């Protein structure tokens, strides 16, 4: 075998490249670099230790402030309509224990801060027993009240009448109380309530379309047993307890039982809870990019291993546009790169444009879009705009020299001679020995 054949050249190559590396004395440089990295790492850890305490303190303060700001506040209510408390505070904020009496002129409405409402028709009497963060207790003294409670996750509403208590979640019903006969009447329109009181071993559940009538033992008839009757079907106009103003029965058809909060959330038309659920659903979608980014799916591995066509096929299966819409900047640009290397320039452009739109024009996307305009769309004017953007926005960018050269070339191709001359001058100023220097010199001299 000759000493100067191709195999022996490999030995020359080895000698040359290794000689070059030795000449550059890389070992001390590598050691110095690694020591610097190590030192930076230690400094970061020390700094982290100091800051950790500060951050913990700040976090504790923030948590305290948040707790104070977000602590559950008790409900409040406003009185509205024809009627008054003893002080005649119509339209004012109501207080606990304040006696509320609807006048002859019309009903009195108690509007609670959670959106619930209790309406007292003429002559009805009640007062608010308690106001809590998740509900209130209304004590019915006489007459009938219409109750409309907005359901929330921890709703804790109740209406008290004599020894009876009506526990409410989210519902609409009327409750009447006859003080003379100690008779409670509950007429359900929507939802359900649980009634507890005399004569009931367990809470009596009353659902939409049902009416409950309960008689307590009165002092006049001490030997009587308490009586509880629950009637099914659409409630006919029930005889109002004595002394109670007659009130039109709701004509709404019976509604399906919506006792379970989850079911109610699904069937309720547009309650706040529904809105919360809706927002939660959006929040779930918002978390999707992280999931996409965290999922080391097939296309990434195939891209890494230079299997571009298979990688693109895998990305299409996983949802190319979904990745563009929700992936990280690295993912979206790599996806564009994958598509370009698989010679699918339309998909590449789609990904680069998504990166450009979603991440405020990252440098790799900007220059790639310029190159696609120049090479694939034969649109040098559009390409020049991309390269110009790159040069202006990323003057220290990884590809700034290339972008400056391509800007010059694009403007020349687009017939923008003045622009090309400007680009040439700028190029020579920054890259006097760059690959476009000769062309730039020629342009400037002209």
């Amino acid at each position, binding site marked *: 075998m000759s000493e100067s054949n191709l195999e022996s050249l490999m030995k*020359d190559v080895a000698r040359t490249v290794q000689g070059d590396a030795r000449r550059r004395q890389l070992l001390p440089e590598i050691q110095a670099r690694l020591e610097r990295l190590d030192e930076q790492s230690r400094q970061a850890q020390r700094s982290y230790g100091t800051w950790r305490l500060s951050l913990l303190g700040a976090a504790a303060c923030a948590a305290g402030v948040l707790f104070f700001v977000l602590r559950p506040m008790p409900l409040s209510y406003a009185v509205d309509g024809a009627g008054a408390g003893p002080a005649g505070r119509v339209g004012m904020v109501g207080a606990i224990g304040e006696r509320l009496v609807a006048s002859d002129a019309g009903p009195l409405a108690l509007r609670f801060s959670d959106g619930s409402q209790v309406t007292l028709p003429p002559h009805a009497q009640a007062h608010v027993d308690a106001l809590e963060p998740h509900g209130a207790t209304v004590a019915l003294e006489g007459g009938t009240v219409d109750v409309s409670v907005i359901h929330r996750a921890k709703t804790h509403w109740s209406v008290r009448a004599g020894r009876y208590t009506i526990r409410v979640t989210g519902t609409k019903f009327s409750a009447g109380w006859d003080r003379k006969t100690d008779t409670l009447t509950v007429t359900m329109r929507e939802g359900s309530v649980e009634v507890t009181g005399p004569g009931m071993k367990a809470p009596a559940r009353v659902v939409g379309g049902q009416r409950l009538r309960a008689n307590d033992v009165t002092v006049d008839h001490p030997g009587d047993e308490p009586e509880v009757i629950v009637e099914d079907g659409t409630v006919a106009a029930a005889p109002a307890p004595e002394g109670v103003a007659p009130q039109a029965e709701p004509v709404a058809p019976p509604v399906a039982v919506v006792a379970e909060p989850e079911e109610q959330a699904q069937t309720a038309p547009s309650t706040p809870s529904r809105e919360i659920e809706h927002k939660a659903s959006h929040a779930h979608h918002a978390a999707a990019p992280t999931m996409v980014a965290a999922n080391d799916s097939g296309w990434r591995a195939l891209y890494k291993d230079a299997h571009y066509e298979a990688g693109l096929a895998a990305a299409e299966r996983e949802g190319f546009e979904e990745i563009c819409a929700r992936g990280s900047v690295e993912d979206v640009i790599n996806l564009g790169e994958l598509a370009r290397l698989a010679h699918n320039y339309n998909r590449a452009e789609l990904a680069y444009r998504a990166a450009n739109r979603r991440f405020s024009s990252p440098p790799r996307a900007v220059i790639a879009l310029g190159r696609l305009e120049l*090479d694939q769309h034969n649109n040098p004017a559009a390409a020049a705009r991309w390269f110009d953007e790159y040069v202006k926005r990323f003057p220290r960018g990884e*590809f700034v020299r290339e972008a400056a050269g391509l800007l010059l070339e694009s403007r020349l191709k687009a017939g923008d001679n003045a622009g090309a001359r400007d680009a040439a001058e700028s190029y020579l100023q920054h890259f006097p020995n760059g690959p476009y220097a000769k062309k730039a010199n020629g342009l400037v001299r002209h």
Partner: protein
Amino acid sequence: MAIAMALPREMRPGAHVLNGGATTYNDDAELVAALHRGDRAARAVLVQRYEPLVERLVAGALGIDSEIADVIQDVFVGVFEGIRGLKDASALRSWIATLAVFTARGRIRRRRRWRWIRFLAPEDVPEVPVSGPQGETHEAVRATYRVLDMLPDDERMAFSLRFISEMQLTEVAAACRVSLATVKRRLARAEKRFVEAAKDHPALRERLAQGGRWSELGKAAESGEAGES
């Protein structure tokens, strides 16, 4: 372990302080154990011991390149990050070689991917200081890497490890984490491609004409093509 960390350097298990003050370790097992303990002196020893290997592999793969130092640094950063996962100390050398191969291949791939944007003017190519007839060898070295740039990454790595870094076939297979048969296949394809492409470069064509196994390979390919036509 805590006791070992608290001991003076020269009293730690496996550590030996030379007259000059430098720490050394008898073998890779001691070195790896020290690295697992987080011994900083062991890091310096590891770099001292394995930098030449990494440099040889990286330089062979990339050629004369201004980024060699960056790649070597990346390799050692990877070594320090992953050393806790290395259970078998006797595999240290081949593990580092694998890291070097994969890091260099990653750099080549990245460069290849963005080559459509990058370009290198002749005046930007670094000058190559070589002994002997500088002009000819210089041109031949550059032509060699231009041809290697045309090879698929895996074939290029196998080729450079075998013929430039002069590794044994089994070492190449281990470093590339593939079977011996796969390496042989890659090398066969790489040699064929290299010889074919070498015909287009005057500096390599002359060498090809000087005979040798690759010359025969080129002739066989030519006769095969002639036969087909």
